[in-house]
């Protein structure tokens, strides 16, 4: 009897430790989260490059012909692995993104914008720029950046 009494507290402690370790491991696996910035731009054939859009203008200018560029909205999202971040675009559609693999440089992110779907490996600071949706005589340009 004495031996069983002596062993039970130790066994319970080990069980509690094991449970705690499992919870910690699963929590750390699930809690990998990323900070994203989603910037929506409006590129037009007229007008000028507005304040705040110069950084994107430097990236886009050599690849896209336009005159006007302005920031419509810029929003930040913190999204965990396999969670979905979402931003409503001015044309009523939604831009969705989902980090699906935290390993490697940055994050592997699945995106969903209208008919367009894709997977991209996004290192921090390297923008993913998706353009082409027509809106108000110009085109919407969505920029997804991993900030952390």
């Amino acid at each position: 009897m004495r031996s069983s009494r002596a062993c039970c507290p130790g066994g319970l402690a080990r069980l509690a430790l094991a449970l705690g370790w499992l919870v910690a491991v699963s929590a750390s696996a699930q809690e990998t989260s990323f900070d994203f910035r989603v910037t929506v731009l409006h590129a037009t054939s007229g007008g000028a490059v507005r304040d705040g859009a110069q950084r994107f203008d430097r990236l886009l200018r050599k690849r896209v012909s336009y005159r006007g560029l302005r920031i419509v909205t810029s929003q930040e999202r913190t999204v965990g692995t396999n969670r979905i971040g979402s931003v409503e675009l001015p044309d009523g559609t939604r831009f969705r993104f989902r980090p699906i693999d935290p390993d490697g440089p940055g994050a592997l992110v699945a995106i969903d914008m209208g008919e367009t779907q894709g997977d991209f490996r996004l290192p921090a600071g390297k923008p993913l720029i998706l353009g082409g949706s027509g809106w108000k005589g110009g085109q919407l340009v969505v920029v997804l950046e991993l900030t952390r």
Partner: protein
Amino acid sequence: MNDQQRRRELLHAYHDDELGPLGRWRVRRLLARDPASREELARLGTLGDLLRESEASAETPDLWPGIVAQLPHRDGVALPATGGAEGGMAPWLRWVPAGVAAAALAVVLAVGLGEGDASDARSLRWLDAGSRSASVLQDDQEATIIWIMDAKGEQTSRGRDRALI
């Protein structure tokens, strides 16, 4: 391309393991809710098995004994009945294919490693623009720029890596 064709292409890509993680996830969702897709995928699997079986059963016949019988023989020198042309090859020549293979492997490895370094900078892993077409204007260390064309493809002309607004 209509929905049915797109669905079929998606299932083929899934069967051939050509989809990215999200693509596979989408197909699994489709399979969970659509019995027709499950049947289509099962048919693809059956077809693949049949092809593998036919490849395995189609043995290449050994024609060498028949060829040997028809070749003029030098006195006192008999060609082996098996083993193909290698039997008549000078001993030093036997090392030539191995050397060529080793050199080719070295070239492939060098090119492969070079490409691996370059592809590390690329972000694009998989892209499906549905009924529209997409153009990758840039994908390097600085940025990834994807432009989705409208149905008429007016935004870029073919062969140019520049979009027009």
